[in-house]
């Protein structure tokens, strides 16, 4: 069963310099319970697509169904079922870790006692228990990223969008996040759509990859299939072949330091 299906989903931004066609007609189907890696070079349109699918940004073209609800006609129903962790996070430096987690629960309609209990459980899952009463302004980058994730998981969403969730995480935290994503899927059937620039991560975690470039789908398939198709040993080589961004020729000119 498809939990996301889009047809011709597009977004054009109007800027002073002219139009930016960030996403040009994407047809995407994501099965329930799947871990999907959404890859592409910088500026390919990954964040824009995720922001459209999570109701934050109205598409300028096309249509989409998310969790059984029409994205445009019933955004509130979609919001109830999805979690979204933005690439830049969304934490208020004037609050503590605990108050952010509790408020998030309250915004999803949990009564205060439940929201408080949920905050404690999330803190346990994301190794934030020691930090609960700390101001979020005093968190390290990786700690704040874990808080962002906890905020996105507050209401046990059926579908989770993670925009570069492991950027800034140390290897231990990254491994913990991979384990968490797998556990969410295995124990709760959560569908996860995540973007990443770490192709080893995509290779290890995602069952299926969609690679976009210039706002359009350039390739899709399992990591193994994509590698085989391009005769590549690593996902990185397959990615570079697909997006036509091979390694730059080595420049032998001496680097001027002064």
């Amino acid at each position, binding site marked *: 069963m498809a939990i996301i299906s889009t047809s011709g989903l597009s977004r054009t931004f109007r800027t002073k310099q002219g139009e930016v066609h960030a996403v040009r007609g994407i047809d995407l189907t994501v099965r329930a319970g799947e871990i999907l890696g959404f890859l592409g070079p910088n500026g390919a349109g990954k964040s824009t697509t995720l922001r459209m699918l*999570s*109701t*934050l*940004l*109205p598409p300028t073209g096309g249509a989409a169904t998310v969790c059984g609800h029409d994205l445009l006609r019933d*955004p*509130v129903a979609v*919001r*109830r079922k*999805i979690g*979204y962790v*933005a690439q*830049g*996070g*969304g*934490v*208020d*430096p*004037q*609050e503590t870790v605990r*108050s952010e987690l509790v*408020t*998030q629960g*309250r*915004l*999803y*309609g949990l009564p205060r006692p439940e929201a408080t209990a949920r905050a404690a459980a999330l803190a346990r899952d994301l190794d934030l228990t020691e930090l609960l009463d700390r101001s979020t302004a005093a968190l390290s980058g990786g700690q704040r990223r874990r808080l962002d994730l906890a*905020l996105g998981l507050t*209401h046990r969403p059926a579908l989770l969008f993670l925009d570069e969730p492991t950027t800034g995480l140390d290897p231990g935290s990254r491994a913990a996040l991979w384990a968490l994503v797998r556990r969410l899927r295995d124990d709760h059937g959560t569908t996860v759509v995540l973007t990443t620039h770490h192709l080893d991560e995509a290779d290890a975690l995602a069952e299926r990859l969609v690679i976009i470039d210039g706002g359009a789908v350039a390739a899709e398939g399992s990591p193994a299939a994509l590698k085989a198709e391009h005769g590549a040993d690593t996902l990185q080589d397959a990615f570079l072949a697909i997006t036509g961004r091979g390694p730059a020729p080595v420049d032998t000119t001496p680097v001027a330091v002064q």
Partner: protein
Amino acid sequence: MLLHDTAVLFGRYARQTLRSPFQIFFGALTPLLYLFFFGPLLTGLPLGRAGDSWQVLVPGLLLQLGLFGASFAGFAVIMEKNWGVLERMRVTPVSRLALLLGRTLRDTVLFLFQAVLLVLAALLMGLRAPLPGILVGFGFVTLLTFSLASLSYVLALRLPSPQEFGPAINTLAMPAMLLSGLMLPMALAPGWLDVLSHFVPFRYLVDAVRDAYTGHYATATMLYGVLAAAGLTVLAVTVGTRTFRGAEA
């Protein structure tokens, strides 16, 4: 849903304000300075209105407090937008209108508290006014701060670049203050200035509060004041709702 969400957000913003006593009192500072160091200059001067000089000045200072305090409220939402907090909230099913009301209610309570401080200080300085009149004054401050804070949030979200927010507010608030006769009544103004001031809605509010402070409630001035305040409130709620409902706020 709307009530629940508004209460949750009001609580969050109210706690943020309570953690910063400076923020609580700062807004009252400018009007208090006017009260202490400008007010005494007016005693005994003919101000072209019924009542003594305090009954004329204090209503003006009350609205000055609301005008300047509330119109800068939008700064907070610019910060929240930059931190990604606004987007994080917009992806939850929280009522869009509550995203606006939670803040504006906090602002309204804050400015009302400052208005009470100001009036208490004015009583010490020599203000004498009937209690119902003083309460009517607070009513106008409430409507004014509620609508201006909402409009300020709208402006903050709609401006293409947030650096323009401060200058934009100053450009609007300064002439609004001068043209509505907040410091000295427009009754003193030459004809052209008086005519011009009729296009500034705050003028009707301040004149109405001045009537109330001298115990005149059933006047045409009061009617215009109520109409202007109601108009502002309707405008603010309409524009505010539309902006916060709009998917790109």
